[in-house]
């Protein structure tokens, strides 16, 4: 039986907005639902990809998962305990066991510190090594992420985009975590650099038995890196399950649309999904995807479908799933 690390139980995160009134006066109260009824469990050793367009709530979900923001409703648990309630030793353990690689790797590194100090910081903070052993450990980490020892004395501004990401990964590994949480860690890079980093992440995960929670908008990256996938749309998980099964036979029309949009060699460009992701403020009733869905029927605009298990570890939130007919 694998131990559950993270559990999100019907997590809702909404923000109250009062802007938009005339002449700097507050406008009427509006609600922005960044997350709504999100359920997700991550067991030790899992690799989970969160996939979706911007505005789908991926980053908010990470913030809740990491205890950086508390949910308005529902609970976020780590090892069975509420993340926001962790105190003392438990909190220190959580901070050591879960490491994050941020989307903007360069922005996440202090520009005034050389790589040695950047990577040594978590080691010293968690008192994992002392004295000269710290430096040895940093060298070991640099080697693990494929950077030469000479990088030690460099500052982030002297490194390329790919190297900076490697330093960020080394820094995340420095606290000897059980879980790595990465937010778009390979986006915006050249394909060759991206491929190098993906290989590195797969190797680290395999060798160290890391749990991986990976945010990406690229289904290809998700399928390469992760066994599990959760597709998000407007604050909801619309489909989740084993990556391979879902990409081979998507059940939710949105997953299908994402698959269609994936560039493929020499294939004609598929008919793209119409419209854009709507604003999460004051959402209409019914399924959130109904407005763009090619399969929508009037019933879709009335009831908001919940994420229901559909067998083989899969779940889908749709009243007309694509797999139902077969």
């Amino acid at each position, binding site marked *: 039986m694998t131990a559950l690390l993270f559990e999100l139980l019907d997590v809702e995160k909404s923000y109250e907005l009062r802007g938009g009134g005339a002449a700097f006066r507050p406008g009427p109260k509006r609600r922005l639902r960044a997350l709504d009824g999100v359920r997700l469990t991550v067991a030790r050793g899992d690799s989970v990809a969160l996939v979706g367009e911007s505005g789908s709530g991926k980053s908010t979900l990470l913030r809740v998962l990491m205890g950086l923001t508390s949910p308005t409703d529902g609970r976020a648990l780590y090892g069975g305990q509420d993340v926001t309630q962790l105190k003392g030793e438990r909190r220190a353990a959580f901070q050591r066991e879960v490491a994050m690689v941020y989307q903007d790797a360069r922005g996440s590194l202090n520009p005034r510190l050389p790589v040695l100090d950047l990577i040594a910081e978590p080691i010293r903070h968690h008192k994992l090594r002392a004295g000269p052993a710290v430096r040895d450990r940093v060298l070991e980490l640099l080697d693990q992420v494929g950077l030469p020892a000479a990088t030690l004395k460099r500052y982030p501004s002297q490194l390329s985009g790919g190297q900076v990401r490697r330093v960020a990964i080394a820094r995340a590994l420095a606290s000897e975590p059980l879980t790595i949480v990465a937010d778009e860690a390979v986006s915006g890079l050249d394909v060759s650099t991206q491929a190098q980093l993906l290989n590195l992440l797969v190797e680290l995960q395999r060798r160290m038995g890391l749990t991986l929670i990976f945010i990406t908008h690229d289904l*290809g990256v998700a399928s390469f890196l992760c066994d599990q996938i959760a597709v998000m749309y407007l604050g909801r998980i619309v489909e989740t399950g084993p990556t391979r099964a879902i990409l081979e036979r998507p059940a939710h029309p949105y997953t299908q649309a994402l698959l269609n949009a994936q560039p493929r060699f020499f294939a004609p460009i598929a008919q793209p999904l119409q419209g854009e992701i709507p604003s999460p403020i004051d959402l209409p009733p019914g399924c959130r995807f109904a407005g763009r869905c090619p399969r929508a029927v009037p019933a879709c605009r009335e009831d908001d479908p919940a994420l229901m298990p559909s067998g083989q570890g899969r779940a889908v939130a749709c009243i007309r799933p694509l797999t139902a007919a077969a």
Partner: protein
Amino acid sequence: MSLQMSSSAVQATSRPLVELEDFSLWRQNRSVLDGLSFTLPKGQNLALVGESGAGKSTIGLALMGLLQSQGVKMAGRARFDGQDLVSLNARAWNGLRGRRLGMIFQDAGAALDPCFTIGHHLAFPLRRLLGLSSRQATERALALLESVGINDAKARLKAYPHELSGGMQQRVMIGIALACEPDLLIADEPTSALDVTIQAQIVRLIQDRVRMQGASCIFVLHDLALASQACERIVVLYAGQVMEAGLAEVVLGRSRHPYTQALKSCVIELDTAALEPPPGAAPSLDRMPSGCRFAPRCPRASERCTAEKPPLQGTEAHQIACWHPG
């Protein structure tokens, strides 16, 4: 309302629209582009692909005449519809830019002026370059906005750039670039800042509009699969040199250059099990290797590769610059 057809469209259809012959470019005496040759026949689309630093965007800027006074030196020939661009004076450029050459920039949000409305952005080139009256220009701007798929175009004319989403801003940019019905459109990474579902919409839109106006498009892309979908011709660049060029199905389908093959092996498709990126990274401008610039990363490199630059050889359907083609 039909706009004046460019006189060239009637003349010599066999003459290529764009023809680069041994075209080189230096910035502050550093070689950025080194002896490029490729042609783009009228009515076709071409993709410039390669890693960052390969000079893809520089080619786009040079063809737009936007690299005139920045310590930039050019040599060789770059012809647009028979006219040599290298020796063109400022006055002649003004007759081409915007009118016969249109450009779509990568970051639409930064390319649009926040102080002016969408209507102003669209009407300006029409009034300035085509001499339309203010009313005519506004009417035409409305038609343009509708043609790039913006709903409620009338209201959008009065909107400011920040009031539109990224996808909408990119549509507006396409509208501006196409306002004077140019013969050549240069699209510099038009979709890399957008979500996947929007990406497909935008590429299709550019394709449709370009085809409808009988124009050609040079895409700067980093996604090889997308390039194969959108373009008939491909030019693979590395560190300012053409590695391989020709028809998309040959260059990407039956590539013989080790660099093209390496790039292809970095592309993640949904069933990709292993990635084999080339080691290292592209060279920086002040440390360009001699001979073939890919040689230091090339698995097939020999002594000859570092000593002597391989010439670009072959037919128009398939050209390759390599001493050891596979």
